[in-house]
């Protein structure tokens, strides 16, 4: 009896919850201190600073400080004329800007491209902002109506709009047309292929596996080459498909195969119980997939989907090799212009293109991150 050294315990007072201690300046100080705590970390920090300075300073110097901002020809961008070291030659971009944006789209018809952009932006922006209502209608307009309107606007030949052949298209227009089409169509194609690959019907499954593995197995360049130069030999003359359309189909099938595997990853992460729960309610296959499984699966693979979108956006530059002049292609064509031949033209052009690609890709990435966070707030785990 006397062994009990620990007395029994009964709580008398209830502890009220307290707020957590405020994040202090100490945390910042700690981080700062860690940068130099010991010779190894100090060395790493110094190397880091050197690298950053070595990279950032020349870039800023080239793009802004040494840059030439006004001028009308190569002479204005030569260091002999300016009398100092010359950075980016921005007048070159200004002079070629129309070409970079529209390619050889006739100047009198370029407003059609602008209207298409404007329409697209007017439909896309409210679609991307979660608080704007009537998402359903908006989505139908953007994914269903807009592509049709854009097609007729850009191609023309109806409603008194002169026909503009796609071989005249170029620059950012082509880049956006290819990536928009690729993004809009590759996701549904990928979803269907992913579902097919998991189908219980052996024929569907086999067809999907062969399709996916084929398109993943060949390089995009091969696909584009085949679509552009080989296909016309196999198809009868009356089947002649527009060169840009052939490339579009190739890109969509190619991107769809990749997308299929991303989506399949998401499908595999959904517990069996979700399928059973949906089945037990009498939801058929398509409703089960559309209402229960895919909304969860796609949410899980947003990073992978956006990864594919960004890759696709940048892969559009490959169409250059089949003589379609996207933004990068148009740029390279402009390099050949002797009026603007300077030592810095090439760097200026690539810096400009790089910025455009970066802004779009980074925008997609940030938006996806924002969406992910939002969806996680809606559904705490």
């Amino acid at each position, binding site marked *: 009896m006397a062994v009990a050294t620990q007395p029994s315990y009964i709580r008398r007072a209830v502890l009220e919850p307290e707020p957590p201690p405020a994040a202090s300046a100490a945390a910042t100080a700690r981080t700062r201190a860690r940068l130099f705590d010991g010779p190894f970390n100090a060395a790493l920090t110094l190397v880091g600073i050197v690298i950053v300075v070595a990279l950032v300073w020349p870039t800023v110097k080239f793009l802004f400080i040494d840059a030439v901002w006004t001028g009308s020809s190569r002479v204005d961008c030569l260091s002999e004329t300016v009398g100092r070291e010359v950075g980016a030659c921005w007048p070159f971009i200004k002079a070629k800007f129309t070409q970079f944006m529209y390619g050889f789209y006739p100047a009198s018809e370029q407003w059609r491209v602008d209207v298409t952009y404007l329409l697209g932006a007017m439909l896309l922006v409210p679609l991307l902002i979660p608080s704007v209502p009537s998402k359903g209608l908006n989505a139908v307009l953007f994914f269903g109506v807009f592509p049709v309107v854009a097609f007729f606007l850009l191609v023309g030949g109806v409603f008194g709009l002169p026909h503009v052949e796609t071989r005249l298209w170029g620059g950012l227009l082509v880049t956006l047309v290819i990536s928009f089409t690729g993004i809009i169509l590759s996701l549904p194609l990928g979803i269907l292929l992913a579902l097919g690959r998991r189908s219980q019907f052996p024929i569907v499954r086999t067809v999907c596996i062969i399709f996916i593995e084929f398109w993943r197995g060949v390089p995009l360049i091969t696909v584009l080459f085949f679509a552009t130069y080989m296909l016309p030999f196999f198809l009868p003359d009356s089947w002649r498909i527009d060169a840009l359309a052939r490339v579009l189909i190739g890109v969509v099938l190619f991107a769809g195969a990749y997308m299929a595997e991303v989506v399949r990853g998401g499908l595999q992460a959904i*517990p069996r*119980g*979700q399928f*059973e*729960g*949906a*089945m*037990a*309610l*009498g*939801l*058929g*296959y398509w*409703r089960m997939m559309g*209402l*229960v499984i895919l*909304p*969860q699966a796609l*949410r899980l693979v947003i990073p992978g989907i956006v990864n594919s979108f960004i890759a696709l956006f940048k892969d559009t530059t490959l169409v250059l090799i089949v003589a379609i002049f996207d933004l990068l292609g148009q740029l390279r064509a402009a390099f050949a212009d002797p009026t603007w031949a300077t030592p810095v033209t090439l760097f200026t052009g690539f810096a400009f293109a790089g910025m455009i690609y970066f802004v779009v890709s980074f925008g997609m990435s940030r938006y996806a991150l924002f969406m992910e966070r939002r969806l996680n707030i*809606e*559904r*705490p*785990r």
Partner: protein
Amino acid sequence: MVESLGESGKKRTPNGSARSAVLDMRTTKNEVAIEIIELNKWFGRFHVLRDIDLKVMRGERIVVCGPSGGGKSTLLRCINRIEDWQRGRVIVDGTELTEDLKTIDEVRGEVGMVFQQFNLFPHLTVLENCTLAPIWVRKMPKMEADEIARHYLRRVRIPEQADKYPAQLSGGQQQRVAIARALCMQPKIMLFDEPTSALDPEMVKEVLDTMVGLALDGMTMVVVSHEMGFARQVANRMVLLDAGQIVEVNEPAAFFSHPQHERTKLFLSQIIR
């Protein structure tokens, strides 16, 4: 081995309580709700269900128990064909379940199921979980589906959680939502697959109370459970399933006090502490 209400009636002992007699009043309609005939199922080479014969009458409440791996859940999942089988027949509410997907979905609409792991849809709110099937399967207008959903959420006593997401609820609340979700399809039969096994002990009662309420309303229920208190209270018949076979079928009073089969005696001695 053919088990039916008639046969179990024959075995009925005179000491059946008055309460279960009251419950029995509602089961006297001689309509068959579920008929399982010589059901056989294999998982690979493993013979999980062997010659199962079971007839469940409308309004009857069957509790299936037995050691784990005995095939209880599998049997239950055959009733709405979430599992298929290799031999035998299952007839639910007069409709035989075949390969035909349309028939299967129709039957699933009439048979509600509650799972051990709830299987609520985490991306939908509680209310949306409840209205999903009525809207998309029954083609019910959203307003009406909402109204029915709120009615059943009141019945399971969590109307105030309608706009939350499942992850924000406790296990017991989630399971009650799952019951409400199944009820929103206004099923004729309810299947429960170990509905309290995944719950913290303090939440078991709230779920069992909901199920007792359902039983008192005369719902046809097949329950896989080891909650013997619940079984005694509401079951018309107990079924002991072991190694894929029905070992014993009897009304609860006799099942618990005078188990006939050795396997039943052993099982009861192991679970009653």
